[in-house]
């Protein structure tokens, strides 16, 4: 039996035994059955390709494993929703003649999601400094002045943010 056969078999067993429970857990987290069903599906897709299932050993704590995978998807889900909310607010605040076409909106929102995912988990000040540099083209001196920190600190923030972005860029 190849390792991927084994993974498929294990995943099938997980699905049969824990799918209903996982949907319930997600519904509790998300407050919406529809989203819960979607994320449960995504969870099993991730599980199918994860390394933990590439051995023939059965999982010790199947529900803990599922919750770890699903938990990442849940936080991702909230991040996306919060970004979409901010996006809609920003669009609504634009003068009508500056609102991009639907085509451009779609591609912009996609880019925003990708960038937001790269910045996920950075401290708010690091994120802020990085955005000022990347989007507004601020010099480090300008960022330092705006945030009331030293230029050295700005550079440290920038290095930290760049490092994370490089690791997370696909």
């Amino acid at each position: 039996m190849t390792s991927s056969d084994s993974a498929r078999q294990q995943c099938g067993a997980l699905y049969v035994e824990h799918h209903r429970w996982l949907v319930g857990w997600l519904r509790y987290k998300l407050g919406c059955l529809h989203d819960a069903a979607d994320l449960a599906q995504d969870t099993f897709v991730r599980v199918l390709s994860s390394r933990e299932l590439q051995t023939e050993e059965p999982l010790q704590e199947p529900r803990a494993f599922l919750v770890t995978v699903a938990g990442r998807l849940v936080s991702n889900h909230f991040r996306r929703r919060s970004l979409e909310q901010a996006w809609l607010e920003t669009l609504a605040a634009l003068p009508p003649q500056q609102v991009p076409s639907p085509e451009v909106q779609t591609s912009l929102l996609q880019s925003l999601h990708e960038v937001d995912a790269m910045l996920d988990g950075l401290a708010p000040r690091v994120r802020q400094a990085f955005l000022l540099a990347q989007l507004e083209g601020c010099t480090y001196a300008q960022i330092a002045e705006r945030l009331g920190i030293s230029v050295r600190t700005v550079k440290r923030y920038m290095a930290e943010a760049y490092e994370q972005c490089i690791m997370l860029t696909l």
Partner: protein
Amino acid sequence: MHHADSLNGMDQTDKLDRTAVREAAGWLVRLHEERQNPQTLAALARWRASSEEHERAWQRAQLVNDKFGLIPAQLGMPVLGHASSSSRRRAIKALVLLMTFVPASYVAYRHSAWREWTADYATRTGERRSLSLNDGTELELNTDTALDVKFDAVQRLIRLHRGEVLIDTGADPRRADESFRPFWVQTRQGRIRALGTRFVVRRDHDITRVQVYDGAVEVQPANAGARQVIQAGQQLSFSAEAVQLPRPVDPHGADWARGLLVAQQMPLGEFIHELARYRPGLLRCDPAIVDLRISGAFQLDNTDQVLAALPATLPVQVVYRTRFWVSLTAA
């Protein structure tokens, strides 16, 4: 096979050398402020060449800047500044409002929604020509002018090879997307970025002159790091090496677009030099009379008539050797 793709990507991430990534991040930090510094660029090139890991990390690092390059500041700041805490969002909104200067690096979109456009335009001596570009920009080409227009997903670029052009990037409400693509005019001496709407660019030997009537533009000489913003009501000239200080704009500097040369106590030598631009052949002015002053509004479409009228107001005579060789001498 989106799923498989992302897995491969993850495997590659795992293989990136952590130290190389940290160093690549350090280079990006430096480059943000030293993009023009040849020593920095040379040092970066050496670092990249010194190991395969370095080069791989660098390739990945550049993707980061590419990703951010796709996002215009006016949308990116408020959206990416969002957070679970609404007070932080407010703080960032306030911060965005405080920012008055213009982003230096700008925006491209990956999608091919943009109409690409490349074209060459030219006018003969004495000819003027109006053009409407597909982004709503209006161009007026003055006499003996050559330029090409290159619009693509990344930018709107006009290369002015010779002559003079009046540019009106007036906001067309049907073309809101266009405001996200930077508008550049390139001459041999450097680049001019339109931040506003109406300006004239003129090439004169080694000098480019810019006159701004509405909005603002930013000038970047080809061989100098300096940038200079020119506001409405100002003009300046620049070479590839240096930028002059802005001066008040000539209020009649764009009148040629209406077919007029307007002179107010203009030295005759200068007047003839201007008029000569609109005539094929030679038009000479005797050095003895170059300091005479002339005023009036003259029709550019009939320079022979303008010349013929000069002796009525000034002590000069017009000598036609041929139609294309005309001299102005003391009467």
